[in-house]
C-alpha cells in the first residue's frame, strides 16, 4: 500500500531531521561560553555558597553534572539527549527543577496551538472567499482595494501589528478587548487577529491568483459549454482546482505562523511556547530550550505531512513519494 510506505518514509525523515536539530542545538549550546548553570541560572543562594564554602559548592556542581550527565563525553551526551527527546523523556529544566518539562509543555503547547491554528483557520475562512471575490471582480475597484490591502497586510510583520493592536485597544480605546493575559476567549481574539492578518492577506492573494488562472483553464470553458450554472462553474470547477494550489501554501504558512506565535505571545504576555522559549534561550536553560525547539519542529513537520496528505486528497493526480 502506497500510503503506508509513504507515511513510514516521512516519519523516518522527521525522526532523522529532529535528531539532527536536537543534536546540533545541544552541541551549539555546549560550546557556548560559560557553564550551563551560571549563578544567574541557579539563583542567589548558590553564588553565596560559592563564596562561603567552595568545597561544598564544587561538590554540588559535580552532583549536578552527574545528574545531567555533563561529565560524560560530548558524543555520549548528545546521543543520550537525542534518545531521551525521541522517547519524550524531557526531564526537568534548570529554571524549574521541581516541575517536569512535560508538564510545562502540557500547558504551553495547547495555547500556542490554539493561536496558530486559529490564525490559519481564520485566514482560510476569510481569505478564500475574498480571493474568489477579487478574482471574479478582476480589474475593478474592489479588486484593487483588496489587492492593495492584502499587499500591505502581508508586508507588516505580525509582531508590529500586535503592537499596533495593543496601542489601539490598550491605550486609545481601552476596555473593548483585553490586550494581555490568557484564559478567556476574549483574550485570544487580538493575538489571533495579529497572527492571521498576514495570512488572510496571503491566502487572499494566493486564492485570487490561482482563481484567475483556473478561470482561464480549458476545463472551465468545458463546464460552461455543458451549460453548468455559473455558480457551480466557479465553485466546483475553478475553486476546487484552485484549492489544490492554496493548500500547498498552508504548510509554509503554518511554519511561519507558529514562529510568529512565539513573538506575538511576548507582546500579549501569553504563557505559551514562546514564553517558555524566551525564558529558556537567554538563560541557557538547555533542557527547556532544546525541548521547546523540538516540539516546534514536531509541530511544523507534522503539519507539513498533514498538508501533503490533504494535497493528495484534493488532487487525484498527485502520487505520494
Amino acid at each position, binding site marked *: 500500500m502506497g500510503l503506508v510506505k509513504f507515511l513510514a518514509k516521512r516519519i523516518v525523515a522527521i525522526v532523522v531531521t529532529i535528531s539532527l536539530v536536537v543534536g546540533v542545538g545541544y552541541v551549539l549550546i555546549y560550546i557556548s561560553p560559560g557553564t550551563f548553570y551560571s549563578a544567574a541560572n541557579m539563583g542567589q543562594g548558590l553564588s553565596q555558597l560559592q563564596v562561603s564554602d567552595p568545597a561544598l559548592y564544587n561538590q554540588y556542581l559535580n552532583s549536578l553534572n552527574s545528574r545531567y550527565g555533563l561529565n560524560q563525553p560530548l558524543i555520549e551526551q548528545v546521543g543520550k539527549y537525542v534518545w531521551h527527546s525521541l522517547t519524550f523523556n524531557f526531564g526537568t529544566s534548570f529554571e524549574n527543577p521541581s516541575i517536569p518539562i512535560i508538564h510545562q509543555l502540557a500547558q504551553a503547547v495547547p495555547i500556542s496551538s490554539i493561536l496558530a491554528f486559529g490564525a490559519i483557520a481564520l485566514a482560510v475562512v476569510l481569505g478564500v472567499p475574498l480571493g474568489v471575490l477579487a478574482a471574479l471582480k478582476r480589474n475593478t475597484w474592489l479588486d484593487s482595494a483588496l489587492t492593495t490591502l492584502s499587499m500591505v497586510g502581508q508586508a507588516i510583520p505580525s509582531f508590529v501589528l500586535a503592537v499596533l493592536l495593543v496601542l489601539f485597544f490598550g491605550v486609545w480605546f481601552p476596555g473593548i478587548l483585553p490586550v494581555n493575559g490568557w484564559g478567556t476567549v476574549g483574550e485570544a481574539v487580538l493575538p489571533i487577529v495579529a497572527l492571521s492578518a498576514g495570512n488572510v492577506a496571503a491566502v487572499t492573494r494566493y486564492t485570487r491568483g490561482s482563481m484567475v488562472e483556473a478561470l*482561464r*483553464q*480549458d*476545463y472551465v*470553458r*468545458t*463546464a*460552461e*459549454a*455543458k*451549460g*453548468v*450554472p*455559473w455558480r*457551480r462553474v466557479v465553485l*466546483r*470547477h475553478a475553486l*476546487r*482546482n484552485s484549492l*489544490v494550489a492554496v493548500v500547498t501554501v498552508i504548510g509554509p504558512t503554518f511554519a511561519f505562523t507558529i514562529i510568529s506565535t512565539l513573538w506575538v505571545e511576548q507582546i500579549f504576555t501569553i504563557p505559551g511556547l514562546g514564553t517558555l522559549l524566551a525564558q529558556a534561550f537567554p538563560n541557557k536553560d538547555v533542557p527547556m530550550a532544546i525541548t521547546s525547539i523540538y516540539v516546534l519542529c514536531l509541530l511544523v513537520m507534522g503539519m507539513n505531512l498533514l498538508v501533503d496528505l490533504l494535497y493528495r486528497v*484534493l*488532487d*487525484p*493526480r498527485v502520487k505520494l513519494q
Partner: protein
Amino acid sequence: MADELLCVEDLHTEFWRGDGTVYAVNGASFSVAPGETLGIVGESGSGKSVSVLSIVGLVRGNGQVTGGTAKFMGKDLLKLRRRQLEDIRGRDIGMIFQDPMSSLNPTMRIGDQIMEGMLSHQYTNRKGAFNRTLQLLDEVGIPEGRARFRSYPHEFSGGMRQRAMIAMAVACEPQLLIADEPTTALDVTVQTQILVLLQELQQKQRMSIVLITHDFGVATNVCDRIIVMYAGKVMESASVAEFIARPAHPYTIGLKRSVIEVGTQAHQLKAVPGVATTLMAPPHNCPFADRCQFVTDRCRAEVPELRPLSEGHYVACHRAEEVLAEAGATAVEGATADVR
C-alpha cells in the same frame, strides 16, 4: 433559408489588448442545415474558433461580440442572457475542444463530468444520468464503463479522453455539435477513430456538426460543406465536391496545395507564402492581398464581398473567375508536369 438549424450573419468579434484592438472576426456569415456537417477551415488565427465561440457566448477575457446575429432554432443567441445561454449550451449545442487533457477537470471523476451536464439541464434524474453515462461510455467506445466511471482524466489516454469529451457533449442529445479541432492533439490513427465515432453518433442522433479544423484533408473527408476563413472573414463556401473540383479562391488553392499526402515529394508541396496577420484595424481591402499571387490594385483598395459563383458556391474574391480558370489549367498541367 428557413429550414437552417443555425444561421450566422455578419458576425463581428473584437479583442482588446494593451496595444490596441484586434479584429478577430469581421463579418462572418454561414449557416448549418439539420443533419449537415459543416467544416470550417483556416490557419491558426483565422478566426474560425473565435467565431464559433462567439456564437455560444464563450469568448474569453477581453473579447466581445460587437455585431451580427446568430439564429439558432428561432432565437438569436447573441441577444440571450447568460442564464438563457446556459440552458442552450450542453442541451441543444454540445461542444468538444482541441486538447482533451486540459479540457477535462483534473479533479473530477470522468463519470461525474459526463453526468454534470445532464443534471444541470434536468435531462434526467441521478439514477437516469448514471445509466445514461454508462450507455454513453459504451457508445463512444470506452470499455468497462462502470470502472471507467470512477477514473480521473489523467488515468486515460489521449484518445480515451477525447471519447469522454464526446460523451459529455452528446449526453443531452444536442441538435448541434461543435467540434473545435477535435483531432489536432491526437495521434494519426486515433484521429481517424474519433472522426469515425463522430460520424456514427451523428447518424444515430441525427445532429448537425460544425467541425473546425486547420486540416483540409480531414475536412474534405468528413464534411458535407466547407467554408474557408481568413482574417475573420469567410473566403469561400461550397460543397466538398465543389471544393475538390473547382476551388475558386487563391487562399483555398494555397491551402489545398499545402496538404501533405502520403507519397508527396517535398518539391510537389507548395506552402502559402507569408504568414497570417492579426488585424489591428477593420479590413479596408482584401486581407489576403499581401500573400496573393493574383493580386491587383482593386484587391488592395476594396474589400471583396462573399458572392455566389455558381449554385451553392460562394467566394469572396474579385478575380474568382480568372483564378478558377487558371487553377483548372494548372491542375491539368500538374498531372503531367511538376509545378516548380
